[in-house]
């Protein structure tokens, strides 16, 4: 990160050891100095200012903070930022380019798979990992794959439909057809 100037604060810096890490975030290599105790979720949110990754429970239960680390869904509230050194991290902001939508995003909107939207980014990242390894999942496989992500609004039925919708769309795109 470049800036015209950086203020050196009198507190915090001096005694606290920092570790330099380099990770790939949504396809771009980023190098930062972090406190060893900094959580990956907080690095993403406060450090990189990507606020699509939400923190819900701090205890690895709710899954709102799910990101992909080397393609595997990880609850970023329970991973230290230093552990991401050398790894590839994808957040909801990396699902699609600025002017396009990933089929999973389209599916969630089309099937009313979200209400308050807070669990949605984590849900979609977990769904992405599922569809990457299993492009044609059954309803049960979707429910099992998403069982680490809590939603309080929807009752899950439409989330399952959203993932099925996305799977169909991705398949049709892969087949070269699709409705665009």
């Amino acid at each position, binding site marked *: 990160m470049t800036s015209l100037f950086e203020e050196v604060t009198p507190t915090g810096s001096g005694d606290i050891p920092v570790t330099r890490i380099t990770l790939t975030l949504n396809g771009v290599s980023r190098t930062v100095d972090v406190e060893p105790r900094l959580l990956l979720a907080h690095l993403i949110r406060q450090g990189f200012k990507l606020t699509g990754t939400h923190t819900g429970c701090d205890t690895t239960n709710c899954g709102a903070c799910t990101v992909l680390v080397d393609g595997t869904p990880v609850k970023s509230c329970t991973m230290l930022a230093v552990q991401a050194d050398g790894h590839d991290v994808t957040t909801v902001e990396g699902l699609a380019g600025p002017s396009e939508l990933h089929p999973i995003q389209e599916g969630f909107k089309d099937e009313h798979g979200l209400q*308050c939207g807070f669990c949605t980014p984590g849900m979609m990242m977990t769904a992405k990992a599922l569809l990457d390894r299993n492009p044609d999942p059954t309803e049960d496989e979707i429910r099992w794959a998403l069982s680490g992500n809590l939603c309080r609004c929807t009752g899950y039925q439409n989330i399952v439909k959203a993932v099925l919708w996305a799977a169909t769309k991705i398949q049709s795109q892969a087949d070269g057809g699709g409705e665009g």
Partner: protein
Amino acid sequence: MVLDEIKIEGLGASRLRVEDNRFIRGKGNYVDDIVLPGMLHMEILRSPVAHARIKSIDTSKAWDIPGVRLVLTGEMLAARNLAWMPTLSYDTQAVLATDKVRFQGQEIAAVVADDPYIAKDGCDAIVVEYEPLPVIVNPDQARAPDAPVIRDDKVDQTDNVIFNWEVGDKAGTDAAFERADVVSRIEMHYPRSHPSPIETCGSIADFDRATSKLTVYMTSQAPHIVRAAVALVAELPEHMIRIVAPDIGGGFGNKVPVYPGYVVSILASILLEKPVKWIEDKSGNLISTGFARDIYLKGELALRQDGKILGVRMHTDSDHGAFFSDAQPSKFKIGLLHAAFACYDIPVAHLTAQGIYTNKAPGGVAYRCSFRITEAMYFQERMVQAAAVDLGMDQAEFRRINFVRDDDFPHRTAFGFLTDSGQYAKCLDVGLEAIGYEEFLKEKEEAKKQGRLLGLGISTMTEPLGAGNSREYDILGIKMFDSAELRVHMTGKALLRTGAKSQGQGHETTWAQIVAHELGIPAADVVIEEGDTDTAPFGMGTYASRSTPVAGAAVAMAARKIRAKARKLAAHLLEASEEDIDWELGRFYLRGAPERGVTIQECAMAAYSNMPDGLEPGLENVAYYDPPNLTWPFGCYIVTVEVDPETGVWDVLRVVAVDDCGVRINPMIVEGQIMGGLAEAYAMANMQFITFDEEGNCIGGNYTDYLLPTAWETPGFELHEVVTPCPHHPIGAKGIGECATVGGPAAYVNAVMDALRDYDVRNIDMPLLPDRVHQAITERSDISGAPPVRME
């Protein structure tokens, strides 16, 4: 040509949600996403014990930590007369504890620092000395003669009783029970639960000394109530307070009250003259903010042998925790519990209720519920099933006999509510048909021969949604009306603001559909803003399924005012008199010459560019709506289960929901609300509860102990609809957000009880955990109360 209302996404269109466009991109704007220049971070130190006198608080080590900017204690608040604040139920609540702590998780001190990690370090460095006091965790302990008085801060409080309240006709009810052929009795506990939105509570207070303006971004379902409360408590002028509720990650009632964290962040910002952010962690949310339920029932039905209910008698003991901070209309001490049995034609009823202080977190919030309606309907439907069993009657038939009939409306209930519409028997029939009632009864008998336990549970109820009319409904004296302000721009596009506040209900989508219906302006041309008290008209917010009944009605009324003015503009444009002009969707035309007309968009342009002499320019209006009555949706929920007698595990086979919420603005969103409610109902019945050990330790203070159902456990849902328009709502709609949460739990529990009919089990209190069901089967006995906690 008349506009196609579905094409412009008016009433009845399953319009895809506008707000999703940002949520699916991770571009929502929740409180924790907001960063202000120079912002500091606050953490709260909470009590590890449930009841203790505070001997000392040493904050010196916290002050020593580099980056700590402020440490606040109750003593410092007391010096500013802010150590206590009023609750929404005319009680007081400690902001930061001064004399003693009264529940585990109570707020003791706050640390403000450069980042949240340092603030947490600061909390860890505070040393508090406690002198333990005896702990009270249930109403029986609270009423014991030697029980310590929890609220010794209140001069007049000599015991732990908060209120005794009654409603109904005692003498008449007693007489009905004298006449009864059969009296059916059942006792139950509705366990303590927590709404637990995935997003916790939080705020950013930003006091600007230069302008004297206080802006607070916060997770509030009712920002205008907060502004009023801050004005009254902190004695800040109301016009210098701006409350902004941005996107909210679920509310379910949890984000109605004013919590100490908000108040302390405001004070910290005033003292430091910097923005102060407080984001609660999950444990803080679960152990200290508005819980729900925790209420015991003694219920009795006076029955005639032929199945007619002659009278209802109910007594409740409710555990409110250490501060009576229920968010509810001030006239009713135990919420709308007396809406119980509203769908049944019952001559007479009597309810007594006692409220109790205990050493537990305060709350009594309406968790996806209109003020204790969830408890009312659960008790009602469990009592109904027990009565049907006592009479040896079919549970569906017993309900049918007692339903208020379609031609009996308006109907005054035994407790005094006025229901106005419904087709109860039809909803039941649709449900029974969908589940295949007769076939299931046969299947159940067949299964029994193989040692398998099948059960079917029904829950039917009407509930009062949309508080409420100003004669009876207020919070802290503020009448529960709501509002909408509609501005139509010159090109026919529009901006709508309401006093409600969406937390996932989809207002940005559905309010525009009401405007489309009323004015013919395509929904896509209407943008919605909510949650900013500087711009939104005054409203009481979103909870208790009141958005569509009250604010939604205000939207329609504001649009009608716009249409009335547009008619004058149309008359001017058509060079005709107003009386000769008719309206069709989106267009005024000459009665005698329908081809001569002007669109609403042309009227809008005229309002800014070509108005007749004497007509005020512009096309804006505001409507405040005071509903004549509550709305009365009806729900019929039918669940089938199979119970494994070896393990006590029960699996849901099918869930059928028949909802009559009147006219559906957006069927897709309505169904989303119903499914969400059915899942929460399943959660209550199956796993979701908060209990306490005898030392007052909260069991359920994190998501490992407080079980919420995932996609894996949650059953699938089959939805059906019946439409009986609300007779007094401008577009015939009724509330829907909470119906399934309210009516659903009894359907699941009744199904399990039905499966256990042959085991002499009358009641298992929720949650129906496998071990409790197994114990009931093996011991052939009821299981009562909250699940006990083993002390090890």
